Each structure stands twice: as C-alpha cells, then as structure tokens.
C-alpha cells in the first residue's frame, strides 16, 4: 500500500467517511469567509499607512507626482549601489535611469549576484495595506523576489491608488493569489528578530532599513 492510500484510508476510517464523499456541513458548518473591511475615507489611507509604516521602524516620503520621486530618494543613493525591479512605474518615475541603479534583469543567476552585492533594492508594490503598514508584492516579470530581500535596504515606490484598507480587503480583491503568481509576500516592517533575550534587533536576514515613497498622482 502506498503512503497516500494508507493515510487517506486511516483518515476516512477515523472520520467514518467514504472516498469521494463531499464535505459534511451539518455537524461542522463552514460559513462564508469573514472579511472585515473598515468603512473609511480612501483619502485617509495614505495617512494611516504612513503612520503604521513609521511605527514599525520604516521611513516614508510623501510626494505629489512621479517627477518628485528621484529627488526624494537621491540622498539615500549617494555612494550606493542599487538594484531596481522591472516595474514600469519605476521607469516612469525615472528611477531606473539613475547611474547608481542597475535594472533590467531577466536572468536569475545574474539577478542573484547583483542583489547579493547591492546596498539597496528598489521596487514598486502591487498593493499596500493601510491598517498594518504592509507592502504586498506579487512575483512577476516586473517584480522579482530577491530585490526586496537580499540587499540590506529596501525602497518601495507606492502609487497612492494601490493603497487598500487592510488584509481583508486584499483577500477580497485577490481571493486566490496563487492563480496569478508563485509568490505573494506581505512585508510589514523591516526584518527583525527578538530571539536573544527578547531584545529587538533589525535586519537579521532581510533588509533592516525600509523606505516607502507614497506617490499621490501617477
């Protein structure tokens, strides 16, 4: 008997269920998913996001339009090597054109090398969550996983229109993220640990510094 057959056999025997039997709802009902989306003015999302993001230890900038992005982050890039994602929004903001910024990767190994050596990773986001100050990033040709992960600092350029209220709203928009991507990650604050004496230390394995640039008009 295969392991699969035995495990399913044991489960069905214990639960007194037959193979292929649909779930029973009488004894253990399953209600519709409980999503709680607060009713609030969408214009306030950016304020709330910035407040939460900073309380986690992030640094944020509010800019009016795309042309204000490069000036906002210029100081962070002085004497630094950065890797940027292929997001069209970054190109529109002029980030990928900067001399310190290396972009346009399509090869995994080259990307990995570059990210491991870079000081800063620059990405856009697919969404951001106001209630928790989180970035939501879906892996795609535009957004690789490693840019927000390997360098010690991460800058995310966040179009204000991508702000959602909370996790529940995200799950109402993306009821099954796996249909679109192999990886969706919620990033809520800088990498941290409290494994030694419960003392908080930032930047264990992921970026210890994170920055958000919220752009009002795309």
């Amino acid at each position, binding site marked *: 008997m295969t392991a699969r057959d*035995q495990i399913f056999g044991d*489960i069905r025997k214990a639960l007194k*269920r037959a193979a292929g039997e649909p779930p029973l709802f009488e004894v*253990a009902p399953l209600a519709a998913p409980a999503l709680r989306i607060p009713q609030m003015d969408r214009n306030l999302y950016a304020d709330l996001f910035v407040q939460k993001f900073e309380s986690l230890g992030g640094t944020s900038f509010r800019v009016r339009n795309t042309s204000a992005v490069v000036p906002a982050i210029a100081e962070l890039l002085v004497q630094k090597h950065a890797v940027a994602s292929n997001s069209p929004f970054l190109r529109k903001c002029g980030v990928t054109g900067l001399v310190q910024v290396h972009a346009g990767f399509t090869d995994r190994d080259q990307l990995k090398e570059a990210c491991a050596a870079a000081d800063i990773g620059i990405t856009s986001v697919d969404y951001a969550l106001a209630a928790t100050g989180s970035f939501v990033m879906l892996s795609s040709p535009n957004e690789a996983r490693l840019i927000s992960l390997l360098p010690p600092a991460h800058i995310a350029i966040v179009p204000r229109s991508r702000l959602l209220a909370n996790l529940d709203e995200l799950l109402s928009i993306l009821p099954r*993220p796996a249909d679109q991507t192999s990886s*969706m990650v919620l990033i809520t604050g800088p990498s941290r640990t409290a494994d*030694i004496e419960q003392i908080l230390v930032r930047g264990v394995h992921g970026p210890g510094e994170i920055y958000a640039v919220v752009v009002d008009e795309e």
Partner: protein
Amino acid sequence: MNAPEADIQQAIDDPRLQLAIYTATGRLIDHRANVVSAEALPHYQDLRSEAHAIKKHTIENLDYYLEQLESNVIAHGGKVVYCRTGQEAADFVLDLAKKRGVHMLVKSKSMTSEEIHFNERLEEHQLEAVETDLGEYILQLAHQRPYHIVAPALHLTRYDVADVFTKELGVENEVVIEKQTKIARNVLRRKFLDAGIGVSGANFLIADSGAIVVVENEGNARLSTSVPKIHIAIAGIEKAIPRAQDLAVFLNLLGRSATGQPLTVYTSFLSGPRRENEIDGPDEFYLLLLDNGRTKLLADPVKRQSLYCIRCGACLNHCPVYRKIGGHNYPWVYSGPIGAIITPQFHGVTSDTWLPFASSLCGACAEVCPVKIEIPKVLLKLREEVTEARRKSDSDGLERFAFQLFAWIATHPKIYLLLASLGSIFFPLTPKIGPLKKWASQRTLPEPAKQSFHQWWAARRPKS
C-alpha cells in the same frame, strides 16, 4: 516514563533560568494583551469562534480538503509527497538531494521538522541541514532542542550565545546582541547563496489554491524558499484550511497571539515552482504531507480538536506550570499545555503518564487559545485514559491492594471502629512521616474529629 523530577527541581532552583523564562513569557503576555484588547481588536472573540469553526470543519472533512489541496498543488506545477513517518520524509529528501547532487540545504524554522528529527536523519547521510532562524541556528550549534514553540532560544542569555558562537564558529567572544546577530547573518548569508535545497515548514495549507503560507520575522523563510533551486515544504496534514480568504481570520489571530504583532514581518503565500515568466524563485516545489501519528488523533471527537493548533505558543506563555518548569522538561518538542495534550496522543497514553496530570487545570491556556481548543477538557479525558490503562495493566499493584484492604476493613465493623479510633490518634502524624510527607507539604489536612460519630451516638442514646 515518570516525571523528570530531578530535572524539574533543577530548573525551579536555577534563579537565572527562572528569570529568563519569567521575563520572556511575561513580555509575550503583555505584547499579546495590547493587541487583542477590546479597543485594539473589537471582534477578537468573533475571530476565535470563526477560527475554531473553520478548523473543526476542515479536520472533520480532512480527506476532502487534502485531495483538493493535492490537485491544486499539482495544477501549479508542484508535487505532493505523502509521508507516514519522519523516516519517509527524510528518505525522500535524501533521495532527491542525491539525484540533484545537493550536499547542503538551508532550513527555516519548522516545528514539524523538529518533531521528526529531520536534521539528524539527514546528517547521518552526510547531507548538511543548516537552521537559519537565529534562535534555531543558536540551538543547532548548541545541540539543543527548542525551548519554546515560537521563541526557541528563550532560555539562553547573550552570554550563553557568546560562548556557543566562540566554541562553534571560532569567533571572538561577543556579547552585544546586535553584533551577534550580524555574525549569524554573515555566516548564514553564504549558506543561503550556496544551498541546493531550501526547506520550510508551513503555517497553513490552502486547499482551494494549492498554496502554503509561511509567516516569519527574520526573512530567513523567504530566503530559504526563494534562493535555492528546489523548495521543499514539510507540513502536518492538519494544517489544511479550505480557502485563501480564511486567512483573514487566521492571520489576524496568529501574529497577535504569538508575539503581539498584527502581522508578522513577512507573510508568504507560495504555490508551486516559479511560473514561466517569473525571474526568480525555485524550479521545483515539493509539498511533503506528514502523518506521523496525526491520523490516530482523529477518531475521538473530543481529542481531535488538538489538531486545530496553529502553534502560536500563547498557551505556553500563560501556563503557570510551563513558566516554572520550562520547555525542556516536557518529554517532546511540543511543550506547555499543547504539548501536554498532543504528546500522549502521539506517543500513546502509557508513555508519559504523568504529563496530563502536570496541570492545575486553571484554564489559562483555553482562555488565550486563538482557535479555542478546550485544553483542560482534553487533559481530563487523557487522565481518564491513563487511569483506565493503569487499572487494566494492573501495574499499580499497591493501589489495587490498598483498595482491596479498604473494602475488607469497611465491611468488618469491629475492625473498622478499632482502626478509626487508632487513626484519630495517629492521623495527625502522617503528614510528617512516610510517603505522604511530600504530598502533604503542599496541602492543609483537616483535623480528625475528637469524637467519632459512633461515640457521639452512643453517648446520646437514651439509657432505657
């Protein structure tokens, strides 16, 4: 096995350890309290009820949801491997590593892999498995098992860590925690970049998506699941939930209950290998679904709720027993109240018979459990089973003899009266001598009456 009384006494007598446990669990208690209060999370109690209902439904229809999960993992290009035991899981990984020529793998924190002694099994065959969670890495170097479900190195101080690093990594003695963290980051960064396989656990398995969810704070799980070309996730079959949208309930509870975070730093939804046009991510994805005794817990309607656990560790932090005796005095990797109910069920009630009794049934665990597992109720059920097994096995001859003796005395009135009057004389002495001394040291015994009922009745009876 009997309770490790000497070890427990040692833990209680160690002021440094007591302080470490008390402070760390105390902080976790406070952090949780701040984020589940009525002001911070008005619907907290509703979430708990919803989480319980979803888990109950899933566990009671587990075969259905596992089949759905399996077909969706395959649809996204992943493979599902069923493992009856830890050995089967290790054998699969060893075989795959051999085929792909992999000599080293990186691991993110997984209690399930601790449960099956995954690293030891691989290292017997010269496959190096490197723990990458900071706490787990320290413990791997120190050759210890986790002290706590979410804070594995809770019992160690910075000075302990300095000694471990000096001894095992050959670095200068370093007692500044930030610098210790940096040392670990540098050593492990190289491992991430070189490893051929990344192994993770899974906090949830989403049936309708064929996805796994991994929550963490350090980024080591993201690295383990994103950098190496092969990702293997190991999870118990009970981790299934029906829909991705159910995470609105579970993620709002897990981080808050564990560390007081509304969301942990990284929450990864992962499904299958990287898609055709994605730049990075693994080329191969395997989901190892482990039984290892879980199916044994399913039959009993009261006890099966032990499988609802989402491993937040809140019951440990709030347990007066855990907070005194610490994590290593529990016989298995799962400690605290949840360990006390799942260990006897996985290992059989006759293996650690003391465990279900090592509780005052104060109920703190059930009160904080985010999925409302009735831990005291399960403990009582297990006590019943332990007692029943003892009675059947007749191993406790002394107890049986004592009851037989009592039955005989109680049915012979003259002897009963004689012994009762002797008893009222000698009874006050028993707590000070003999086998009852220890038991009585924590209890106040009632004074025997000066006059027995028989004597009282005889005195009142009219002398006609």
